[in-house]
């Protein structure tokens, strides 16, 4: 089976990284890009395979003009099957690569891990007040953090809120040239809110924006 890691535009050389299961990386020309693949003998979904997939994709970022990462699990019987699947893609691989050109992904997570002083609400009004408080907190973070970050990004995706301590979860498509300013804004926000947990990681390959359905800034 052929395992697909990513599509790359103007890839210089393959990185000195092995594929899943130790096989060599190969390229397959599709449209005006390269599909980066490797042959895998059997279905391998171990943590090692997952990590290896990620390492391959990240190793590509500095060797080409743009990367469209594939989700883990894209496997094909042969070259033809892969080519056929690429042809069915809308938007096309070429379009996605152009949209992502020169950009990397930065992940920002904000949690409020503080213990709630008030006990769990037992009445409806108490529940609504608590929920409104959470909503306001998220609104405040959105305004103070997300809006300035959005300005530095070509696109952004904010994950809808889930139950739990997560107050903000965003992925930002940032041009490399803007990384410094972006980082400064995150640090400034974190400094102003020592009571919150702030995690900022990157630069990643633009996983969150590979599907071509993100909200443009």
């Amino acid at each position: 089976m052929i395992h697909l890691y990513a599509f790359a535009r103007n890839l210089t050389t393959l990185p000195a990284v092995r594929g899943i299961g130790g096989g060599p990386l190969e390229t397959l020309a599709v449209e005006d890009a390269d599909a980066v693949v490797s042959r895998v003998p059997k279905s391998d979904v171990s943590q090692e395979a997952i990590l290896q997939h990620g390492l391959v994709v990240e190793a590509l970022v500095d060797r080409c003009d743009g990367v469209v990462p594939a989700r883990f699990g894209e496997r094909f019987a042969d070259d033809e099957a892969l080519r056929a699947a690429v042809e069915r893609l809308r938007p096309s691989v070429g379009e996605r690569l152009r949209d992502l050109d020169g950009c990397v992904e930065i992940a920002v997570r904000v949690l409020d891990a503080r213990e709630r002083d008030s006990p769990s609400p037992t009445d409806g009004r108490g529940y609504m007040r608590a929920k409104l408080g959470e909503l306001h907190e998220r609104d405040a973070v959105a305004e103070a953090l997300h809006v300035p970050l959005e300005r530095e990004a070509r696109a952004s995706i904010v994950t809808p809120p889930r139950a739990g301590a997560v107050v903000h979860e965003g992925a930002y498509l940032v041009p490399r040239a803007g990384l410094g300013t972006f980082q400064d804004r995150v640090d400034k926000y974190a400094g102003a809110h020592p009571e919150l947990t702030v995690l900022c990681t990157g630069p990643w390959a633009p996983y969150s924006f590979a599907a071509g359905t993100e909200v443009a800034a």
Partner: protein
Amino acid sequence: MSAVANRRPIEEQVTLLELVDRVLNKGIVLSGDITLSVAGVDLVYVGLRVLLASVGTFDRLANEGAS
């Protein structure tokens, strides 16, 4: 994760988890053989995306018809 990985400092651990989150849940999905996903989930799931696209088209057509 292996025992060695669990001894990594917490910073490395969360960064690794961020990568794994991306690899597993983000990234492009081709409509090819998704051999790793439960057929039941992804078939219906992919079908939902197609359905969503169709709903969008239906809305548009309905609005065009009304004008």
